[in-house]
C-alpha cells in the first residue's frame, strides 16, 4: 500500500514569518498527511502546530464547495449556482457599471494576506487588465517600522535569520516566536547552547518571554523610549562603539545633544515602567556581549509613535556597532518579493485615458464611502476577511450594505463572505501551483499541485482567467488579461536571469528538487555601504525631516482616551493566523479564544471576578468576552486575542501610525492605540 503514496512539494502560504516548505503525502488523490521538507535549510523538516493540522484545512466540513449566491445580501438565503452563472452575473454587473460611468473606476478590489503566494496577485492583475479602477494601497502590518528602517539605513533589508546562531546576546523586542515564528527558536537555542543570553522585552509575558533568561516588562508604546534610555546610559558611560559612530553614522552630535538635554532617565523609568537597575542591566548586556542582535517585532510599531519606536531600537544597534555584524545586526522584515518582477501585480492594463485611484487599506470603508465621480459600486474581496480583521468595522458594515455587488473569494464562509452577494470557493495551496518567498528567512520554494481542487474550488488565477475570458466574449477588448497563460508559465515569467542568479538556479524547475536560498545580500550591511543619500547610517535623517517627521528618533507619548482608561492589545493566538483558524478542530478551542485577560487590581475596581462574562466597550463598539484575571498582565491594560465570533476589531480606533507612506503608500495602523472600558454583565442585561 505504501507504494501508492505520492509525495509533493508545497509551501505554507500564510501571512507568517516562516513560509515553510512542506512535503504532502497523497494517496488516491487524497492528502493524508504533511511534513516539513527536510531540504529546506530554515524550516529543516519541521512545521508548526497549525501546519501539522493542514489536512483539517483541506477537508474541513466547513469548506466551501460550490459558488453560492444569496438574496438579499446578508439574509443567509444561499443558493448554489454554477460557475457559469456566477461569471455571467458578475460580468453583467461589471459591463453595466462600465457603460453607466464610462469607465471601470466604480470597480474596486480589497485583497490582502490570506494567501501570500506570488500567483495570488492574479486578483490585482485582473483589475489592472480592466484599465483604470479603484485600487488598494498601504499595509496594515509592518509599514511604519519599514519606513523607520528605510530612513535609517536607506533600504529595508533584514539579515539572514539563520545567522542568529552567532549571537552572544539576542534581544527580542515585542515578538513572540514561540507562537508566531517557532522555527527561529532552533537558531536562537543554538546560540544559547554556546552561551548567548536571551532577553525578551514585551508588555505581555508571552510564551517566548517565559523561556528567556531575562524578561523585562515595558509599558506599551514606550519601547522606543526604553531604547533611548539604554542609549543614554551607554553614551554617558562611554560604552558605545565610537569608531563605528565616527565612520558610519550621520547625526551623532545632534543625537548626543538630544540624549543629553531631552532624555531624562527618571522620565524613562516613569513612562516605561522599567526600573533603574534593569536599565543598567540592559546597558551592561549590550556593552558586554558582542555581537548583540535586536529583533524588532511588529507589535511595537502598531502605535501612533510606532515608526519612532523602531528607529530608536535600530539606533541602539548602530551605536553599539552591531549593524552589519554577523550574529549582531537588526532584524525586522525582509521584503523578498521586491526582487521579483511580480508580473501579475504589475500587469499593464489597457490605456483608457483615465487614471486609477487608490484607497488606504487602513481606512478603506470610510474612504470608499466618500468616493464620487463615480462612486464605488462593485467590490471584489479575496484572501481577506475585513469584517473580522480590519479597522473601521462599523464603516465596513455600512459600505457592504451600500454597494451594488460584493463578490468574495474564500475557502470558508467568513464574516465577510456572509455579507456578500456571491461567494466563490477558493483552492487551498495544495490544489494549484505557486512560488513562495518569506518576509523573514531568505529561502524560495515551489508549491506544486498535490491534489485536484476540492469540489468546484478554483484558484485566484483560474478565476481571473475564466472571468476575463467571459468578459471579453461579451465585450471584446474589455480586459487584456492573458487568459491562456498557465500557472506554470506565470511562474516561468518570474524567473528572469537576475532572479536565477540571485538564487543560484539554472531554471525554476530546479525547485522541484530542493528549495533555494538567496545567494547574495544575506547580510545587507556587511560592507557598511548604506543606501541612504549620505551612504551612512542616518540617526539624523534628512529624508524623515523632509517628510515632516522628526529627523532624530525622538520619543513622544501617544494620545490616550480618558473616558476609556484601559489600553487594549490584540496579539495573535497560538491557534490561528489572524482569523484563519482551521487548526482549532485539532488544537481545541483553547481557553484564550473567547477571553479578555486583565490585571486583578483593574478587575477589583470594576467588581469583575475570574470567569465573569464582561462587556468590553468604547466609542466604536462593544464585544462580549469571559474575564480572566492574571497578575502578569500590566495594570491599565487588557489583552484580547484576534478574531472571535464577535471580532475584537470593532473596538479599534482607526488611528494611524506615524510612518508607512514611504514604503507602502499609506501610514501604518495604530492598532494598539485602542482604549476600552470593561464592565461585568449582570444577568438582567443578557
Amino acid at each position, binding site marked *: 500500500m505504501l507504494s501508492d503514496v505520492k509525495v509533493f512539494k508545497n509551501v505554507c502560504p500564510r501571512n507568517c514569518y516562516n513560509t515553510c516548505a512542506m512535503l504532502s503525502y497523497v494517496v488516491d488523490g487524497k492528502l493524508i498527511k504533511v511534513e516539513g521538507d527536510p531540504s529546506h535549510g530554515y524550516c529543516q523538516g519541521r512545521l508548526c502546530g497549525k501546519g501539522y493540522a493542514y489536512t483539517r484545512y483541506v477537508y474541513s466540513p466547513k469548506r466551501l464547495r460550490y459558488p453560492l449566491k444569496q438574496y438579499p445580501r446578508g439574509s443567509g438565503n444561499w443558493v448554489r449556482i454554477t460557475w457559469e452563472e456566477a461569471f455571467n452575473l458578475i460580468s453583467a454587473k461589471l459591463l453595466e457599471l462600465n457603460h453607466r460611468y464610462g469607465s471601470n473606476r466604480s470597480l474596486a478590489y480589497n485583497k490582502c494576506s490570506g494567501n501570500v503566494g506570488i500567483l495570488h496577485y492574479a486578483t490585482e492583475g485582473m483589475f489592472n487588465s480592466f484599465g483604470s479602477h479603484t485600487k488598494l494601497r498601504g499595509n496594515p502590518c509592518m509599514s511604519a517600522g519599514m519606513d523607520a528602517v528605510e530612513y535609517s539605513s536607506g533600504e529595508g533589508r533584514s539579515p539572514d535569520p539563520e545567522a542568529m546562531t552567532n549571537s552572544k546576546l539576542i534581544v527580542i523586542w515585542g515578538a513572540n516566536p514561540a507562537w508566531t515564528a517557532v522555527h527561529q527558536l532552533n537558531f536562537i537555542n543554538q546560540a544559547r547552547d554556546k552561551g548567548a543570553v536571551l532577553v525578551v522585552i514585551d508588555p505581555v509575558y508571552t510564551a517566548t518571554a517565559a523561556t528567556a533568561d531575562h524578561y523585562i516588562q515595558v509599558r506599551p508604546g514606550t519601547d522606543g523610549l526604553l531604547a533611548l534610555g539604554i542609549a543614554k546610559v551607554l553614551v554617558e558611560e562611554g560604552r558605545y562603539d565610537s569608531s563605528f559612530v565616527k565612520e558610519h553614522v550621520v547625526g551623532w552630535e545632534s543625537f548626543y545633544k538630544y540624549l543629553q538635554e531631552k532624555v531624562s532617565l527618571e522620565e524613562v523609568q516613569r513612562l516605561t515602567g522599567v526600573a533603574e537597575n534593569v536599565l543598567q542591566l540592559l546597558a551592561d548586556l549590550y556593552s558586554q556581549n558582542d555581537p548583540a542582535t535586536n529583533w524588532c517585532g511588529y507589535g511595537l510599531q502598531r502605535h501612533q509613535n510606532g515608526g519612532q519606536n523602531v528607529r530608536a531600537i535600530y539606533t541602539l544597534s548602530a551605536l553599539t556597532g552591531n549593524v552589519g555584524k554577523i550574529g549582531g545586526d537588526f532584524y525586522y522584515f525582509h521584503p523578498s518579493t521586491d526582487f521579483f518582477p511580480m508580473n501579475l501585480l504589475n500587469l499593464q492594463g489597457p490605456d483608457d485615458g483615465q487614471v486609477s485611484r487608490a484607497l488606504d487599506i487602513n481606512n478603506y470603508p470610510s474612504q470608499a464611502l466618500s468616493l464620487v465621480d463615480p462612486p464605488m459600486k462593485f467590490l471584489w474581496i479575496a484572501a481577506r476577511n475585513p469584517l473580522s480583521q480590519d479597522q473601521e468595522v462599523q464603516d465596513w458594515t455600512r459600505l457592504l450594505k451600500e454597494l451594488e455587488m460584493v463578490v468574495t473569494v474564500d475557502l470558508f464562509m467568513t464574516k465577510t463572505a456572509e455579507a456578500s452577494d456571491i461567494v466563490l470557493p477558493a483552492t487551498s495551496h495544495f490544489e494549484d501551483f505557486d512560488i513562495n518567498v518569506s518576509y523573514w528567512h531568505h529561502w524560495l520554494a515551489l508549491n506544486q499541485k498535490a491534489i485536484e481542487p476540492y469540489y468546484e474550488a478554483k484558484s485566484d488565477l483560474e478565476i481571473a482567467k475564466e472571468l476575463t475570458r467571459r468578459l471579453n466574449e461579451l465585450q471584446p477588448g474589455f480586459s487584456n488579461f492573458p487568459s491562456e497563460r498557465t500557472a506554470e508559465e506565470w511562474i516561468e515569467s518570474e524567473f528572469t536571469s537576475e532572479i536565477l542568479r540571485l538564487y543560484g538556479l539554472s531554471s525554476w524547475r530546479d525547485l522541484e528538487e530542493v528549495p533555494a536560498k538567496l545567494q547574495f545580500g544575506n547580510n545587507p550591511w556587511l560592507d557598511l555601504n548604506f543606501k541612504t543619500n549620505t551612504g551612512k547610517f542616518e540617526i539624523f535623517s534628512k529624508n524623515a525631516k523632509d517628510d515632516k517627521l522628526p529627523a532624530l528618533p525622538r520619543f513622544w507619548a501617544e494620545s490616550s482616551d480618558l473616558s476609556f482608561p484601559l489600553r487594549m492589545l490584540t496579539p495573535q493566538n*497560538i491557534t490561528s493566523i489572524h482569523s484563519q483558524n482551521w487548526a482549532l478542530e485539532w488544537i481545541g478551542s483553547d481557553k484564550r479564544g473567547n477571553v479578555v485577560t486583565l490585571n486583578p487590581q483593574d478587575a477589583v475596581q470594576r467588581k469583575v471576578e475570574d470567569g465573569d462574562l464582561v462587556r468590553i466597550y468604547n466609542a466604536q463598539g462593544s464585544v462580549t468576552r469571559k474575564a480572566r484575571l492574571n497578575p502578569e498582565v500590566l495594570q491599565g491594560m487588557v489583552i484580547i486575542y484576534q478574531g472571535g465570533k464577535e471580532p475584537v476589531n470593532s473596538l479599534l480606533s482607526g488611528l494611524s501610525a506615524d510612518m508607512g507612506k514611504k514604503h507602502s503608500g499609506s501610514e501604518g495602523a495604530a492598532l494598539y492605540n485602542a482604549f476600552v472600558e470593561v464592565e461585568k454583565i449582570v444577568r438582567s442585561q443578557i
Partner: protein
Amino acid sequence: MTEQMGFLFNAERCVGCKSCEMACKNENSTPANVNWRRVSSLSTGNNLSISCNHCESPECFRVCPQRAYVKRRDGIVMININRCDGCMTCVSACPYKAPQFDLEKQKASKCTFCLPRREVGLLPACVSACHTGALSVINTDQPPKNTVPTIEGFPDIRLTKPSIRFRPVKEKLRYWVSSKE
C-alpha cells in the same frame, strides 16, 4: 544489556508550541478527541508535553480484563485493538491519561512510539517535530546525566515507573512593571 525506550523531556526548552501534539495527530490520523500526546501549561509557568510513558510497570497492562496490552522487549507498551472491548478500565487507571477513548471506534488507543516510523529508522513524529529539542528519545535504563525522574506538575511516578526523564527548569530573571504610572 536491557533496553527501555522512553522520552527525555527538557522542561527548560519546551515553549508549549504544540507542534508535537499536532504532528502526532497528523502522523497517526487520530480523531479530534483522541490525543496520544498532549501539551499543557503547568501552574509553575512551564509546559509539559506528555504521551504514553511506556512504563516499567504499566497499569494499563495490569488492569486490562481482555489482556489487550503487551510490553515489548524494547520496553514499548502496545495495545492490541482487536482485543479491546472498550471497557475503559485502562483509560481511568493510567495516571498519565495515555490510553484515549476513541468514540467512533468505541475502543481505547494510545501512543505506539511511532513503531512504523521506528521500523524505517525514523524518530517518533513528536520528536521529529520538536523545534527546541525539548523532546528526545532515550533508553531510560541508562538515563543521561543531569536528568531527574520527575518535575513539579507531573503525576506521581511511584505506581507505574514511567519511562521518562526530565531536565529541570533553570531559574530565570523577571522584571515586572510594579505599579500604574
